[in-house]
């Protein structure tokens, strides 16, 4: 027996052989695996969503609480430039009657840290005097208590305080307290010592210089001075902006077979399809906290274009009759010999289509903004939840036939999660508007096609340009 016969025995007997098997057990196993796949996919989706939710909530909570702490205890930025009058002007007014103002103001103040005291208007006007009476020896690191003082004449001592060289305009400006914490030493240069400030009774109403009537020395006490005089106290609240942008870039595509059986199919797709570019547009709402962290969410539209190109070669065969021989007889007559032959003509047909993959997503991002005056620089990262994926165009199927993508049922209608990272460079073009450009990358780990056949993933590298309008 030769090799061919030997092989033939195996091929014929084993090729169509069916081994006995417990089909119920097989079916049970198949069901179990399919259920497991389904639940695993669901688990990944929900786990990913929950994780993102926790990260966003956690980041927002951290940012908000951090903002509150920093504003209350660490930084207090003077917001009224007029408060910081030159020392010369302040000193020229120091002999103003402390009684006029001091009495008025004193009805509202029982505190005594001069640095927290309403500064320019107060100094020399009795406010300061009252505030610092009994503590003429000013020390930046000392807290004064003026609760029990009655001697308004000691207001004069305030002039000494405020003419000290070490008192800076910044300190004057910062002297406007805004709440009890500020009064207790929430001073931006940190000189106040909380433990040494005895606070009792109402705190003095903070009054910026612009509100003060220098002629009458009368202070228009406001019903709600906190809000009226310090509207910018709202600065603790986040800023809300609308962002609209659009952009384009180039596409990095990867197609690979999950199964070697589809290698040839994959190769022919790689040969005939060329990624071109992508374009996108998005609308987002941004929430920016005072500590420069911001969060955005909105809607995004992205389209990827690819070229499908095929040089289709077809052969046309035609049976033709031709004269293959000519015989000329002795008498001069001629005989033509006809033959038939097959003539093959090769036709080249160029098939050229544009394939389109369209994504509708919900982008959710977090970022940190570095303020550089009119310019700003922000680092941003986040996820995009795909709600719709539409694939159209042409491709070669596994048999090498041109088919419409939308008819193959091979492409998913949703993609899952994508990840994005970008840098935003902004220019403050108006009080509320900002123009920006935003180079970035979007990575789509999810396959557009059924993974069992092919894994088709993308990375998009591009730049967006847009405008932001601050609502608050």
């Amino acid at each position: 027996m030769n090799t061919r016969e030997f092989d033939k025995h195996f091929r014929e007997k084993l090729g169509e052989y069916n081994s006995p098997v417990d089909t119920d057990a097989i079916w049970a196993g198949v069901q179990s695996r399919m259920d497991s796949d389904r639940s695993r996919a669901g688990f990944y989706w929900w786990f990913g969503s929950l994780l993102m939710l926790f990260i966003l909530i956690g980041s927002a909570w951290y940012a908000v609480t951090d903002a509150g702490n920093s504003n209350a205890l660490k930084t207090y930025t003077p917001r009224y430039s007029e408060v910081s009058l030159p020392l010369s002007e302040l000193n020229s007014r120091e002999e103003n009657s402390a009684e006029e103002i001091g009495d008025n103001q004193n009805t509202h103040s029982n505190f005594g840290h001069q640095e927290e005291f309403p500064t320019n208007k107060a100094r020399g006007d009795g406010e300061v005097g009252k505030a610092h009476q009994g503590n003429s020896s000013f020390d930046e690191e000392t807290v004064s208590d003026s609760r029990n003082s009655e001697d308004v004449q000691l207001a004069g001592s305030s002039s000494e305080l405020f003419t000290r060289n070490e008192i800076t305009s910044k300190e004057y400006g910062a002297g406007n307290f805004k709440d009890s914490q500020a009064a207790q030493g929430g001073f931006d240069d940190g000189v106040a010592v909380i433990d040494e400030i005895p606070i009792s009774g109402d705190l003095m109403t903070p009054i910026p210089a612009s509100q003060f009537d220098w002629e009458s020395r009368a202070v228009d006490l406001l019903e709600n001075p906190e809000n009226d005089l310090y509207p910018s106290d709202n600065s603790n609240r986040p800023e809300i902006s609308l962002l609209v942008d659009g952009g384009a870039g180039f596409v990095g595509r990867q197609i690979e077979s999950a199964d070697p059986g589809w290698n040839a199919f994959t190769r022919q797709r790689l040969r005939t399809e060329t990624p071109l570019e992508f374009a996108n547009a998005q609308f987002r709402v941004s929430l920016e906290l005072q500590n420069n962290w911001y969060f955005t969410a909105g809607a995004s539209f992205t389209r990827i274009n690819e070229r499908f190109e095929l040089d289709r070669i077809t052969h046309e065969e035609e049976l033709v009759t031709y004269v293959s021989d000519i015989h000329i007889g002795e008498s001069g007559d001629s005989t033509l010999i006809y033959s038939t032959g097959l003539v093959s003509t090769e036709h080249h047909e160029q098939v050229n289509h544009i394939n389109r993959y369209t994504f509708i997503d919900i982008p959710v991002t977090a970022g940190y903004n570095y303020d550089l005056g009119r310019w700003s620089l922000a680092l941003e990262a986040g996820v995009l939840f795909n709600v719709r994926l539409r694939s159209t165009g042409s491709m070669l199927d596994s048999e090498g036939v041109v088919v419409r993508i939308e008819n193959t049922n091979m492409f998913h209608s949703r993609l899952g999660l994508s990840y994005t990272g970008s840098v935003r460079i902004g220019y403050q073009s108006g009080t509320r508007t900002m123009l920006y450009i935003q180079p970035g990358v979007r990575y789509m780990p999810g396959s557009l096609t059924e993974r069992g056949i092919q894994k088709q993933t993308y990375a998009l590298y591009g730049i967006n340009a847009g405008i932001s309008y601050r609502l608050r």
Partner: protein
Amino acid sequence: MTVEELFIGCRKGKALHQKTLVERYSSMLFSVAKRYTGNEYDAQDIVQDALVKILKGLKNNYKERGKPEQWMRTITINTALNAMDRSWVSRETDFENMPDVPGDYPDAIAELGAEELMELVASLPDGYRQIFNLAVIENFSHAEIAERLDIVESTSRSQLLRARKILQMKVREQEKIRI
């Protein structure tokens, strides 16, 4: 119910059609898997994996993929090859210690049934068994085998040769036992 009708039902996700498909073809696919794995336990695992792929594939894009039975066999073969240990590629290329056997193939092979032949194939080392199956039963060329298994063609040729020799020896042994 024809296989096409079964496929249409499976594409729509109908459980009855899926179950019928599994019942009808699991035996055939199990034989294919067993030829590659060499044991029933692994073969059952492979068949279940392959059937899951088939049912998922049907939900997506079957109509482009040729004859139904052949497509299912291909999926099963690929699943088996992917799942199997590939370390044989380096382990089983030393043929120096193979005993010489007479050139003629024993006629006794004709008397062996499918189950006995299956046992013979199962007794081959992993690499020999894979290449023997691909070359002899599936009728793949050495170039195709080399591409699929990521080996060089000469490895495929030499391992097939050795597989045949081993089978030849085993058949002769069985022949002696019978005598």
